[in-house]
């Protein structure tokens, strides 16, 4: 009896120490796992695109024709498609997202109206992209078609411009919510100083708030650009999926993400496949760089 009691006393702490160590070790392993996953993603993309890197080389990037049947691969149509849609979407979305940021950050930071706007903007980011695509096909495409008839261009309806419109709606929340946080952080003595010198509200925003939050707003724009570059489903559904160099903003095209979504399952030989993976690799690298820079700027801004 006495012995059993003694054993019990000793074994409990030992067991706990073992548990404690196992717990700490599993935490470290899981933190390491994140690094392994990201490194694994990068390695897999590189290894799988080696055939295309070897046989197509750097020329791949500015090859104008994409013709898998004759084994001719050039990524220029998709690079152009991605750049055109993303930047057009960015240009359309910036006035709106900055307006939301200024309204919520400066004019009306509290109250039910600003709560309503804030929640609505967050819900815009929550809507699945495939639903934007479906809505785009059945609602936006006919509207764009009418516009195109008025402008006298070929009324495809689908195309670069429609894709940019859908993308613009989708990326507004990213720049808007980040911008709001940044504008809220402007120290009030700065603003009060400008007011006491007789500045109007517009002048305070233009000469104090915007210069102060410049880098933060830029980071928000970068993060929305990252979203726009990688967005797949909504774009695939409304861009028309034509693998030629787009002739105008209203012409159908293809982006890097949409060509992968359309052709990856159909690719029937290794070079075709690997050319698609190389597009994925390029997409990965670009979005990683954009996101890391954006996050760095935010971190520096919030630490100051």
């Amino acid at each position, binding site marked *: 009896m006495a012995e059993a009691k003694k054993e019990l006393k000793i074994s409990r702490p030992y067991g706990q120490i073992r548990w404690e160590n196992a717990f700490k070790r599993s935490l470290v392993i*899981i933190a390491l796992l994140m690094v392994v996953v990201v490194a694994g993603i990068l390695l897999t993309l590189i290894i799988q695109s080696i055939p295309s890197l070897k046989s197509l080389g750097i020329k791949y990037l500015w090859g104008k024709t994409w013709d898998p049947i004759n084994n001719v691969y050039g990524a220029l149509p998709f690079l152009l498609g991605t750049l055109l849609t993303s930047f057009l979407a960015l240009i359309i979305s910036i006035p709106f997202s900055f307006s939301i940021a200024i309204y919520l950050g400066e004019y009306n930071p509290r109250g039910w109206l600003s709560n309503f706007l804030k929640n609505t903007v967050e819900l815009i980011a929550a809507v699945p992209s495939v639903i934007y695509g479906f809505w785009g096909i059945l609602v936006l495409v006919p509207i764009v078609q009418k516009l195109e008839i008025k402008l006298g261009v070929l009324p495809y309806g689908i195309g670069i411009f429609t894709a940019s419109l859908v993308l613009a709606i989708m990326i507004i929340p990213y720049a808007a919510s980040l911008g709001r946080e940044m504008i809220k952080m402007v120290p009030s003595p700065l603003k009060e100083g400008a007011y006491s010198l007789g500045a109007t509200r517009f002048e305070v925003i233009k000469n104090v708030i915007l210069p102060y939050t410049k880098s933060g707003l830029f980071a928000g724009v970068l993060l929305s650009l990252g979203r726009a570059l990688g967005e797949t489903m909504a774009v695939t559904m409304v861009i028309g999926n034509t693998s030629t160099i787009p002739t105008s903003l209203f012409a159908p095209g293809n982006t890097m993400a949409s060509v992968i979504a359309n052709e990856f399952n159909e690719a029937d030989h290794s070079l075709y496949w690997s050319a698609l993976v190389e597009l994925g690799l390029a997409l990965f690298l670009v979005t990683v760089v954009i996101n890391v820079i954006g996050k760095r700027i935010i971190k520096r801004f919030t630490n100051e």
Partner: protein
Amino acid sequence: MNKPNVNIKYRLGKSRVFQGLILVLAFVVTLPLIAIIVYIFKEGITKINWTFLTAIPKPVGEIGGGIANALVGSIIIVAVAAIIAVPLGIMCGIYLSENKRGRLAYWSRLCVDVLQGVPSIVIGIVMYFWLVKPLGGFSAWSGSVALAVMMLPILIRSTEETLKLLPDTLKEAGLALGLPYHKVILRIIVPCGFSGILSGVMLSVARIAGETAPLLFTAFGNSYTNTNITRPMESLPHLIYYYATAPDDNWHNLAWGASLILLFSVLLLNIITKITTRRWNIQL
């Protein structure tokens, strides 16, 4: 500021016009969301009935059918993804909040940031090479793994941010009473931050429930109801994509109904999360 002699009335007027412009531009943004919700509700609500929820899709040209296969598939795929991602995400969040400095924490945090920005289609490609090609076929669980990878950054961030808000004295009190480290974390720290972690879980589920791109190359699709996670499985977003782009009115109807169900469950999850975080007063 360069022209100090400008009339004050002009300057005030300019300020007012600017304010009006900002107000209009800011609220114009709500229109597309309202338009989408109203349109999908109007088109979708008439399609939903008992057969719609319990039958499987009919082939082209036949009227009727339902989306039972996608409903069951979506629930299974998302549930498996959550089972994989939630423990990992919470544990990683705990590690990052416990080790604010340190080399591993730095790299781990960087990788989480990177993971958050990776386009979903790229994750689909990678999962294809990791899980689909070696095992010789599309499977639902490879789709779940792809979605789990997309859930992780949101989970980790929300766990880390929530636990950072807790005072150190809580942990110190537990340790001073002689509790082992894992008990301090699991019995004191995690329960205290439970609501924040829970809202992270709900947000991440809402985020991936509508993801289509990673499922294209992993779970693929299936026109029959399937509960075996080693076989291809249909999901709501994939069904919407597939049927919305097909030129068939009956299929469009199925896609409308499916969109309504998907949209409302995702929005509902988001709103519930918002209400709970407000009650617990936790900033995400």
